């Protein structure tokens, strides 16, 4: 079973790196349903494996000049702040309703992305992009406050609903900042490691991660991310967009079902 987890993690790491999500969407159902791992343990292992994916993929993406580091730092702050706010207000918000609402939001986003035939490219820098030195590679970053707000909401959702924020990060960068999709997924890969790092470190210290299983999954994700990062440069933007639309639909439906099933 350890070997099976390792093999599946390679696939999850490859897939997660392609779309900038980290792979938890594949890993958690496998660990809980097939491996019969308790949900909290599965989440802890998934967080650790997200760090593995991020470390491995980011090393490659940085060399390909696909990561926008200042943008990543700026958006990370929003996500972390949102996650902290989410901890305080968790329990005050009806999680079932939130699951359903944001599930439909993701389906709508999938429809919008599917309709876009070409990349949305920013035409003019928002003043904050210049003030904070966020703009790189001659790209124009629009709707900076909007993107940051989306990150805060994503952070709140990740805390309240226990989901990863990767999909919202890619959406915010693609739709609002108008960064190219490959740059958005690569930058998201860079970011997700930071937000998962703190939690996974604590889980390890608290002994909540089975070491052999955690080691096998992390190693698999590491390897998968290595392949995924190489694949990004070979796949067309349109192909990547189709994969991401599929992922949006998958996660959207998953969220809606969780909302109706009482989480």
């Amino acid at each position, binding site marked *: 079973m350890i070997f099976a987890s390792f093999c599946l993690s390679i696939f999850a790491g490859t897939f997660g790196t392609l779309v900038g999500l980290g792979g938890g969407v594949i890993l958690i159902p496998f660990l809980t349903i097939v491996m019969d791992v308790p949900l909290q343990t599965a*989440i802890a292992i998934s*967080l*650790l494996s997200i*760090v*593995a994916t*991020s*470390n*491995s993929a*980011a*090393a490659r993406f*940085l*060399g390909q*000049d696909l*990561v926008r*580091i*200042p943008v990543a*730092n*700026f958006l*990370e*702050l929003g996500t*972390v*702040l949102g*996650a*902290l706010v*989410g*901890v305080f207000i*968790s329990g005050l918000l009806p999680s079932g309703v939130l699951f359903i609402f944001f599930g439909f939001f993701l389906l709508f986003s999938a429809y919008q992305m599917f309709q876009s035939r070409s990349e949305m490219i920013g035409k003019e820098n928002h003043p904050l992009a210049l*003030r*904070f*030195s966020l703009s*790189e*590679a001659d790209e124009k970053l629009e709707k900076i406050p909007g993107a940051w707000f989306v990150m805060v909401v994503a952070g709140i959702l*990740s*805390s309240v609903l*226990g989901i*990863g924020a990767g999909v919202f990060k890619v959406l915010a960068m693609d739709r609002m900042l108008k960064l190219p999709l490959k740059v958005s997924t690569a930058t998201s890969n860079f970011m997700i*490691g*930071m*937000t*998962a*790092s*703190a*939690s*996974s*470190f*604590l889980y*390890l*210290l608290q002994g909540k*991660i089975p*070491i*052999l299983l*955690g*080691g096998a999954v*992390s*190693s698999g994700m*590491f390897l998968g991310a290595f392949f995924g990062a190489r694949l990004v440069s070979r796949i067309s933007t349109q192909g990547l967009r189709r994969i991401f639309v599929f992922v949006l639909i998958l996660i959207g439906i998953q969220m809606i079902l969780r909302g109706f099933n009482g989480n």
Partner: protein
Amino acid sequence: METKRRSFIVGQFLKISNLLVLLVLLIGFVFLISKGQPEAESYIYWGLLMMAVTPFLRTILLFGIYFLERKFWLMAITGMTLILILGSQLWMPFSH
């Protein structure tokens, strides 16, 4: 120029860190096959800890780079993130 330099430095840091982590994990898995679980787990545990702390160290590195580049807004943004994460870990559980 700054962009390429930043990406290069952080990229090299990650590559070195990844190699070290993989080496420790590999030793652990070799021990697992040759000597059994107890000794292997110690190596794998330390490898995973090193991996978990890498993004945090990467962010500290970036903080230093921004300081040297005199990008004070980016320093402030990165510094606030580090403080928020550290602070949250010290006094309440952090949920992802």
